[in-house]
């Protein structure tokens, strides 16, 4: 474990490593006769914790993020930096995924067996990938800030929402500022394909929010519409940034697609569990969650499944949920139906698809790479098993 940690640290901090650790596994296998099959680390698979694996790097990324969100006008700077303060950053699951993915796809290309890549290149690449994590966080927070304005939300991440604290207007402006600061940082990577990917994600976020706000009754009751909206609002950002990570590594389109698929399926699985938790909360029983989705009239997977079994639920949905009695009615139907179970099955299915994408990555002998991949797989389990 210490060997692994020091490798990670030296990679980031730039301490020059001895040349032979830089050689690709092919070179290593030839020279040292080692085989990919022999494990050099005895840590059990399930103990590989994704969050602690990248904890050190995450704190670097967070620090840099905080210092990059600066503005000339103090009110703007503090509004834009509001959600990056220590303690309110959230779990930053997205960044964790991206840093793990960066290692997971760090495969030396077979065409250059003696590539013995110089340390500067490796460090530079890692820095660029960390920038993707920063950019993704900025985009994510910008969209949260705007969502809170659109939903009149008072709280977020356990504190007042930005719009609650500084007013709608400054919140909207701060969101714009963050978004375009992210775009500027993105441009600095000088990779137009990566720019396009993240810009697609930005567009998808807005489309998703619009789909949610402007849906007709038929659309709101449509599973297909819901899946599309969920992809746009939740999965698109992480899938596109995973793909960006792979592209920055110089990976093949095939590998890039696998990274994309991991992000997409993980994002979807995450959202389905979120939908369930909104009904159940940390207990297993219905109605103990915050019920914020349904109260806002947002119809999620459990209700959609319930509507398939109980078409009467349509009429309740049409009436809307301003009346708490309707919320209770819907919960009743939900309880009688298999809505929650089916949503959980759907989440599990997507979690498996995500894990499968990782398993399909080209083999690597590197312990770092294998550990990161295991961590990504474990993450799919952690996210689907969570109860808050």
């Amino acid at each position: 474990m210490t060997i692994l940690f020091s490798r990670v640290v030296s990679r980031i901090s730039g301490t020059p490593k001895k040349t032979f650790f830089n050689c690709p596994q092919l070179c290593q296998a030839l020279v040292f006769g080692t085989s990919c099959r022999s494990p050099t680390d005895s840590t059990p698979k399930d103990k590989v914790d994704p969050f602690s694996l990248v904890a050190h790097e995450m704190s670097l990324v967070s620090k840099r993020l905080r210092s990059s969100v600066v503005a000339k006008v103090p009110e703007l700077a503090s509004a834009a930096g509001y959600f990056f303060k220590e303690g309110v950053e959230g779990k930053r699951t997205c960044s964790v995924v991206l840093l793990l993915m960066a290692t997971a796809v760090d495969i030396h290309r077979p065409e250059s067996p003696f590539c013995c890549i110089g340390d500067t290149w490796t460090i530079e690449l890692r820095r660029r990938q960390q920038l993707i994590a920063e950019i993704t966080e900025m985009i994510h927070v910008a969209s949260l800030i705007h969502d809170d304005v659109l939903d009149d939300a008072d709280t977020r991440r356990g504190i007042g929402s930005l719009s609650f604290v500084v007013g709608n207007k400054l919140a909207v402006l701060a969101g714009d500022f963050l978004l375009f600061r992210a775009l500027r940082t993105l441009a600095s990577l000088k990779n137009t394909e990566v720019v396009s990917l993240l810009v697609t994600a930005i567009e998808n976020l807005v489309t998703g929010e619009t789909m949610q706000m402007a849906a007709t009754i038929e659309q709101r009751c449509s599973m297909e519409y819901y899946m599309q909206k969920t992809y746009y609002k939740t999965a698109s950002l992480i899938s596109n940034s995973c793909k960006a990570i792979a592209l920055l590594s110089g990976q093949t389109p095939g590998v890039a697609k696998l990274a994309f698929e991991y992000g997409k399926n993980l994002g979807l699985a995450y959202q389905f569990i979120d939908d369930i938790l909104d009904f159940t909360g940390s207990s297993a029983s219905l109605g103990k969650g915050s019920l914020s989705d349904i109260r806002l009239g947002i119809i999620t997977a459990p209700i959609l499944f319930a509507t398939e079994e109980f078409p009467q639920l349509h009429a309740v949905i049409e009436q809307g949920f301003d009346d708490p009695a309707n919320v209770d009615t819907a919960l009743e139907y939900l309880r009688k139906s298999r809505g929650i179970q089916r949503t959980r099955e759907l989440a599990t299915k997507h979690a498996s698809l995500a894990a499968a994408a990782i398993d399909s990555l080209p083999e690597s002998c590197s312990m770092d790479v294998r550990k990161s991949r295991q961590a990504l797989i474990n993450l799919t389990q952690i996210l689907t098993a969570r109860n808050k």
Partner: protein
Amino acid sequence: MARAALLHLLRHRSVATATAPLSAYKCLSSNSKTPSGIRWTSICRAFSSKAAVNNIIGIDMANTDSGVAVMEGKERLDPFSLVADELSLIANRLRSMVVAEVPNLASAAEYFFKIGAEGKRFRPTVLLLMATALSVRIPELPPAGVGDTLPTDLRTSQQRIAEITEMIHVASLLHDDVLDDADKRRGICSLNAVMGNKLAVLAGDFLLSRACVSLASLKNTEVVTLIATVVENLVTGETMQLTTASKQRFSMDYYMQKTYNKTASLISNSCKSIAILAGHTAEVAMLAFEYGKNLGLAFQLIDDVLDFTGTSASLGKGSLSDIRHGIITAPILFAMEEFPELHAVVDQGFKNPANVDIALGFLGKSSGIQRTKELAMKHANLAAQVIESLPESDDANVIRSRQALIDLTQRVLTRNK
């Protein structure tokens, strides 16, 4: 409640387009603050059945300002008519570009394109003229197509800059107009009151995201950086206006910085982008930037004057919306230099109309208006000089466009609406 109104507006396009403009006009012709000093009363007209294109391109303005003037034997071409066809192409592409997967939102955003044409498509005109002025030959106009395909030639990508600029401009109008609850209670009427807070946020986001997509399609990260900086500047400028501490409000430097951020940055950086796309040197790109910057500053300074004088030459006939909203502009700043007593009045604020009259009194006695006009002229001349510093060319189109750009610097000064 707001959600119901929003959904209603989104689903019933006819409501949004038919009734809204009229009520917008009614409430806008009273004392409402419009962001970026837009002269609404000159632009807001009841919807006619005339081709929408005319409303947007501003051929009207070109016609009323006597299209062709003969001066010293040299035919002065109207800058707007030089690029009229291209402008209509851009307007159509903009329209098709904003058709999103959710058509209702697109129609709401489009509503703003029809009305938000401050300066009658002034910016795209400048950009298109700049593109030609920098030695790009105007090709045969390509068939009007949907804007999402990769630009196949330089001119198309430069036109795209013009489209992006407009989208960003309108988006910033929408977001600048977002209301806090306090404003709602005071009954401030604006685009926002008409369309709903949330729609304003969402439509603005929509336009910004489409602008980003369009920007990415240019495959030029330097241009992305420039335009991203513009939005940061726009936001910074608006925040400067929102949150100024009293000392800064009295500072001419602060005011010029804010004006650069809010008005000039967009046009300067997009002019620079035009040059960069054409593959020009950093020096030429900088010249393009300087033209845009000085033109933008001149434009805003005259806007400040017009807010006091309106179409007449006399004070107090303008809409006075800046001062009524407590926004201290160049004329008042100059007047404060001559009459320090004005400080106290400004400090008290202008909710009390009596203070507005007092300030106007001081302004009338001072040379504030005159000095602002002189400052505008200085910047307009700087812009004209920049054009003259461009690398020589004997191409007739290039020469004509450069003349038009110089012409624009004068029009900015002499306009009275």
